[in-house]
């Protein structure tokens, strides 16, 4: 179990809690490359997972009315310099269920690594799912991350997802998320990414407010330095009466970095309302001066502002 040890050590080095596997009350699924290393379930959580030629295929179900007390940890990664990992996930929360999934994606030595996540998620009536995905990358930038998910949130369901990649080089990132929210459902997508070197970032998130009084938020925070580039596309469709959506994109650029934001608002019902705001630029001058008046150097002030935005 050398790989399990290496992966958990890398998680610990990145600030994660490597003792999660030892707790009987915490469900987990750990995979390195295409090897399934460890798996544990708790009452009401069904996990079917199998190894494929290039990765892992998993079907996860939270049974009706079950509220999983502790977060379910998903640890995916490749501890080596090279490799491919393709994760296929099918997640279903039955009616009135709730769960918080925390995905740790660990690639500490990636020089030529490809990580593909292909997920379908269905949130049942009155169910709630939180999904937090944090990436820990090395300093080489030789990684390609391609997360794709299609999510359906049924009546009065709630879906909150957060994608964080602020440690190490991004490499190439292409997020492609699509969420459909039915009547009274809530969908919030947050992405926070810090690009360095020649990292290439593409974030495309779509929320379709299909049901009456559905709520949606797409919030993106990107900081770029050196020659990194980012293109952020936030799409919200308001297709039902009372639907409310908002797209909020903030990108901070330094050095020779290039950022682009494309908010797309499409409203087909006159009783729906969707708004957007996008700001791209260097660090705000007034923020910088305020912190410098508190005794920080300009470098310290920029660091605090960027870390705050990505917090």
């Amino acid at each position: 179990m050398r790989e399990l040890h290496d992966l958990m050590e890398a998680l610990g080095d990145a600030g994660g809690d490597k003792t999660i596997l030892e707790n009987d009350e915490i469900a987990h699924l750990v995979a390195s490359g295409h090897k399934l290393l460890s798996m544990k379930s708790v009452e009401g959580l069904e996990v079917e997972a199998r190894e494929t030629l290039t990765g892992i295929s998993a079907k996860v179900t939270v049974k009706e009315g079950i509220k999983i007390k502790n977060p379910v940890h998903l640890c995916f990664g490749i501890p080596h310099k090279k490799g491919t990992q393709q994760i296929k996930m099918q997640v279903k929360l039955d009616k009135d269920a709730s769960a918080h999934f925390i995905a740790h994606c660990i690639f500490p030595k990636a020089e030529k690594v490809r990580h593909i996540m292909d997920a379908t998620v269905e949130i049942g009536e009155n169910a709630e799912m939180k999904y937090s995905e944090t990436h820990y990358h090395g300093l080489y930038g030789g990684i390609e991350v391609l997360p794709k998910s299609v999510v359906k949130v049924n009546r009065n369901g709630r879906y909150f997802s957060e994608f964080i990649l602020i440690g190490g080089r991004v490499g190439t990132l292409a997020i492609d998320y699509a969420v459909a929210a039915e009547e009274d459902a809530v969908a919030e997508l947050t992405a926070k990414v810090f690009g360095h070197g020649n990292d290439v970032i593409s974030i495309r998130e779509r929320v379709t407010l299909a049901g009456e009084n559905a709520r949606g938020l797409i919030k993106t925070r990107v900081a770029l330095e050196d020659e990194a580039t980012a293109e952020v596309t936030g799409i919200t469709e308001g297709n039902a009466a009372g639907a409310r959506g908002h797209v909020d994109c903030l990108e901070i650029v330094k050095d020779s970095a290039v950022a682009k934001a494309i908010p797309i608002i499409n409203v087909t019902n006159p009783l729906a309302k969707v708004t957007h705001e996008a700001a791209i630029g260097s660090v705000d001058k007034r923020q910088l001066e305020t912190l410098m008046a508190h005794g920080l150097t300009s470098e310290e002030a920029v660091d605090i502002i960027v870390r705050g935005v990505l917090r």
Partner: protein
Amino acid sequence: MIPLLDIENLAFHIGDKRILDDLCLTIHDSEIHALLGTNGTGKSTLAYLVMGCEGYQPSGGGIRFKGQAIDNLTMHERAKLGITMAWQEPVRFEGISVRDYLTLKHKERDPSLYIEMVGLSPELYLSRMVDRCLSGGERKRIELASVLALRPKLAVLDEPDSGIDMLSTQDIIHVISLFKQGGSAVLLITHREEIALIADTASQLCRGGIVCSGNPREVADYYKSKKCLACVGEVCDA
């Protein structure tokens, strides 16, 4: 005795427009000096010049702090000397908690102490973010708390009362007096007479120059009497 802040014949022009001209002002240790004047007379410009904000370099004259010329120092170098400033409209920060904001430079200081000084509860506010969720008045109080926490030698307060309800005026007066009690001098920019009257000295600024200086009561009366004709749109011979 060397003044804490010594502004000599300060001029600041933008193109052909004179914003400040031949302005002289001194502030001593632990002195509260109120600066009165109508809108557009250069009060905030003077504050920015003292703090060293980007784009604010004297066109003539100079500013000395404890005898040292500071015109070529960066903002953070001036802050290290003990100068700081609270802007009229403090900016918001995403992802920075009130606790962190109050201890940016001095991690060892207890933020509860300073948040209480401005009339806010540590339990309710220290974990909140210094972001858009705060009202204008709350943000203003937190800015004053952060300036108090720096324990500066000179605090430039640009209209600390703006955006704060009238019932809280006494709170602001109390906070300003705390600066003096803590040994800080204050350059206090204000439009409110009752706030200016807590100062040790006062000056009226008009068209980029000091037209009246001395006892706050006398300066406030002079200001209200509109003897300075420039303040009422005529040629000033004050």
